[in-house]
């Protein structure tokens, strides 16, 4: 059963792509959403099953390989652990939401969205499953190109600005990463995880300056992908140019898998370098503050949400900078809560764009009367983002703070906590400009969002509140498992 799920992660997307392209042209194009939906549902289901199975076996890991014999010495293999399955679950969830949004925003003639979504999922699944740094890079390339195409897909030629910037910045990241891997390969001779883990233990590498440079390059490369502050410039432009369903994917999961998971792996493999954690801490702190301050001054709905992603990634970097298991759990919790409330905000953006026709904050106002459900989901998302108790965001932020506190970084925890007041500030500004206040005369005939976008919003809001309320039980379950 576990092997079916595991193999499915790689084979299912490819199968869907093949079936989609082999069927009749017009039938496939009209029903492209169902294919994409099927792929995501499969991913979600298998991730749940795998998670349940692994959880019962006490959080072990499952190795498998497809079409070749992995027992040969030095042979590569795919690995599945509870951490990775959790992230696969995230991929499934965000893709499902993206499909729900896409059904409303993407018309038939751009139906290759299904192909691209499946390949993107394949790329991300691959990144999670591989146990070799270079394969990680290959699958990251696949993800990067897929994202570029999806951003560029909807825009007329003149407006390829955002996509082009994204492509160039990803290539910059690839340059950094490849150079880093090359230096590493020179020193260690192998890029496989278990080899690298063994090597750092012997300490031989710690003093070597070349490996130090490699570390710096790796960190910078993955930070570009995460969108931490010095490297964040592409995120807002990419979001503005991309269609909302693509923004959901980009901000919801791609920057987490491509960026944060990469950083997680690097931290896990090279724990010896204590200065790496300080780098992460500094990047995180700067991202939180700068992201929040920039978000407060944007005029476009999606740019505000994009900068808020930069700020929230800062929190995840802070969690990783502690290096303890609680920090890791905090980071995963924040990835979950960020995925949920970010996708909610983008679903709201889709609804607003579809109904009110504009996403410029100055042209919106008082939409709460016309679109009560969207307003409600937006307020709940704001509460979760600001870390107000009943919601998911509060618990994840609390775990991060506890992790920081336990690992002795009180000053950092204080900074993170007080910076979250800026988060509330720009989200309040967003709510005020978009939903509260008097309605403009041009928007009086606006109706409530309909169909799957509304369904997505309500699903995510329910998720935020229910998991938020059920968190004490989750905490006690984690405690029982011995992780906390």
């Amino acid at each position, binding site marked *: 059963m576990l092997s079916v799920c595991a193999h499915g992660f790689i084979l299912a997307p490819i199968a869907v792509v093949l079936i989609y392209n082999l069927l009749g042209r017009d039938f496939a194009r009209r029903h492209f959403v169902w294919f994409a939906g099927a792929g995501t549902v499969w991913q979600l289901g298998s991730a749940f099953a795998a998670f349940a199975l692994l959880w019962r076996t006490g959080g072990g890991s499952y190795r498998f390989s497809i079409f070749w014999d992995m027992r040969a010495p030095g042979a590569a293999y795919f690995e599945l652990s509870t951490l990775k399955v959790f992230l696969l679950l995230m991929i499934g969830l965000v893709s499902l939401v993206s499909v729900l949004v896409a059904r409303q925003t993407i018309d038939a003639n751009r139906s290759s969205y299904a192909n691209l979504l499946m390949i993107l999922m394949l790329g991300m699944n691959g990144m999670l499953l591989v146990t070799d740094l270079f394969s990680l890079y290959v699958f990251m390339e696949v993800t990067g190109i897929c994202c570029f195409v999806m951003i560029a897909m909807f825009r007329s030629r003149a407006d390829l600005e955002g996509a082009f910037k994204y492509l160039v910045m990803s290539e910059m990241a690839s340059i950094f990463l490849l150079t880093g891997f090359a230096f590493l390969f020179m020193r260690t001779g192998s890029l496989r995880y278990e080899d690298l883990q063994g090597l750092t233990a012997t300490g031989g590498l710690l003093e070597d300056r070349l490996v130090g440079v490699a570390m710096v390059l790796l960190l910078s490369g993955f930070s570009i992908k995460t969108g931490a502050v010095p490297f964040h410039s592409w995120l807002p432009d990419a979001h503005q140019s991309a269609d909302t369903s693509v923004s959901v994917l980009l901000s919801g999961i791609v920057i987490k898998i491509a960026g944060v998971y990469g950083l997680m792996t690097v931290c896990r493999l090279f724990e010896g370098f204590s200065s790496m954690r300080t780098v992460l801490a500094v990047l995180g702190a700067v991202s939180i503050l700068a992201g929040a301050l920039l978000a407060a001054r944007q005029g476009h709905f999606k740019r505000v949400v994009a900068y808020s992603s930069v700020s929230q990634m800062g929190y995840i970097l802070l969690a990783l900078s502690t290096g303890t298991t*609680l920090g890791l759990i905090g980071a995963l919790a924040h990835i979950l809560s960020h995925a949920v409330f970010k996708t909610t905000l983008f679903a709201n953006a889709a609804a607003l764009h579809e109904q009110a026709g504009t996403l410029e904050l100055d042209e919106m106002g008082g939409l709460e009367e016309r679109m009560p459900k969207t307003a409600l989901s937006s307020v709940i998302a704001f*509460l979760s983002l600001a870390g*107000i*108790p009943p919601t998911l965001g509060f618990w994840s932020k609390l775990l991060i703070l506890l992790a920081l506190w336990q690992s002795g970084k*009180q000053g950092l925890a*204080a900074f993170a906590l007080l910076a979250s007041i800026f988060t509330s*500030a720009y989200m309040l500004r967003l709510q005020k400009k978009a939903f*509260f206040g*008097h309605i403009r005369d041009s928007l009086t005939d606006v109706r409530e969002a309909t169909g799957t976008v509304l369904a997505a919003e309500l699903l995510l809001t329910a998720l935020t509140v229910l998991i938020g309320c059920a968190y004490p039980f989750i905490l*006690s379950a984690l405690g029982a498992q011995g992780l906390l």
Partner: protein
Amino acid sequence: MVLLICIGTPLLGAFLLPLLGKRSAKLRNGTSLALVLVSLVCAGLLTAAVVRGQAPSLRMELPLGLSLGLKADALSVFMALTSCAVTAAIIIYSMGYMKHYDHLGEFYMMVTFFLGAMMGLVFSTSLMEVYLFWEFSSLCSWRLIGFYRDPESNRRANKAFIITVLGALMMLLGFLGIYGATGTFDMEALRGVGLPTWATALVLVGILSKSATFPLHSWLPDAGIAPSPVSSLLHAAVLVKIGVYFYARLFVVTAVVAPVFHVAVPVIAAVSALISAGCAMVETDLKRVVAYSTISQLAFMLLGLSCGSRTAFVGGMLYIMTHSVAKAGLFLCCGIVEHTVHTKDITKMGGLVKVMPVTAAAFMLSALSVMGIPPFSGFFAKYLVISGAVEAGQPLVAAVFILGAVMTVLYLLRLFRMVFLGSCTFPEVREGSPAMLGAAVGLASLSLLLGFVMAWPSALATMIGGAAL
């Protein structure tokens, strides 16, 4: 079990109200009142239990030193009774006042949800739980202040939200400091434990922001833009008491605090009392004057609880109760006046006593209780606070508070004169609606009645005092 009902019904029941509201307004108003009355009855039952000596409690242990527990003791039951009673009166009042406004579903939901949060906060035993309900109340106050949806009230609602959440975050930092020093968030385990000074200072900032003391007070007068049942519920009776209650809960009943705070907090309270009293003297907006007076009276309560002597503590507790009742009555009268005269500027009012005698009488009764004139309950509390301050060896602070009390008499009299006395400016105005009048007169006479039966509430307060010092 009674504890769960007391907290659960308003907290969860609140979300049904907007749905009921679709069917009929009366049903929704009635249900919200019923929810509040249920928790009032439960509070009564709990009081009986506590008086009999039991301490009903629930507990759920969580990793990382977190825990979710509910416990009813004298202090929590005292606060529960006060806030339920006042909220019930305010809901009755708002039925008359809010008849022709829209967004009523949200209004009633938020009021009931707020009461649930208040009950939760009062009965919770862990610091994190207190923070949880604390943020609930910030959320409710944000939505209630922003009720009218015009840009100005939005701006002020956001300002109130930012200031209270900032305070709450500083307090959370303090909790983390306490967690770092003692390894637990549970207040049962913190009993009698010395807290690190900087952590106490941070928690104090949270308390001061919530109970609107001087440097962090500016959100309270601005919240006057909200409809008057809201401003009376939030700014007079219940929300601002959360900060003072939590001071009593953490720094007096549970943990031991550094002696420097026995001097520092009274001084801060004194400064806040004088400055807000001064502002109340020159203010011309009806609601802002009463809001500033609330800030000034809160300083009295803070003095009572913080200066360390038992008399002052009991005085502080009584002050919380008497002030809630009297100030809620005052705000409701202001609401009636503003509702009928449609302006908040007191310089344009005058001589309303002839056209609105009952409101004038209720206003004067409540004002006298706030001033602390004897037959009213306010006197007992004010006297105990002042004598407690003297007993605690801080006669200078007591003298400053006497000056504050004189200023209270001055600005309340000035308000009464500018609104009700002098030549009549609105001869054609009629009295408020019966529901509104009923609530206002009820609260005013309650504060008079409490004056006569002050022995029972003070017995309860002494019981709290006994547990504390």
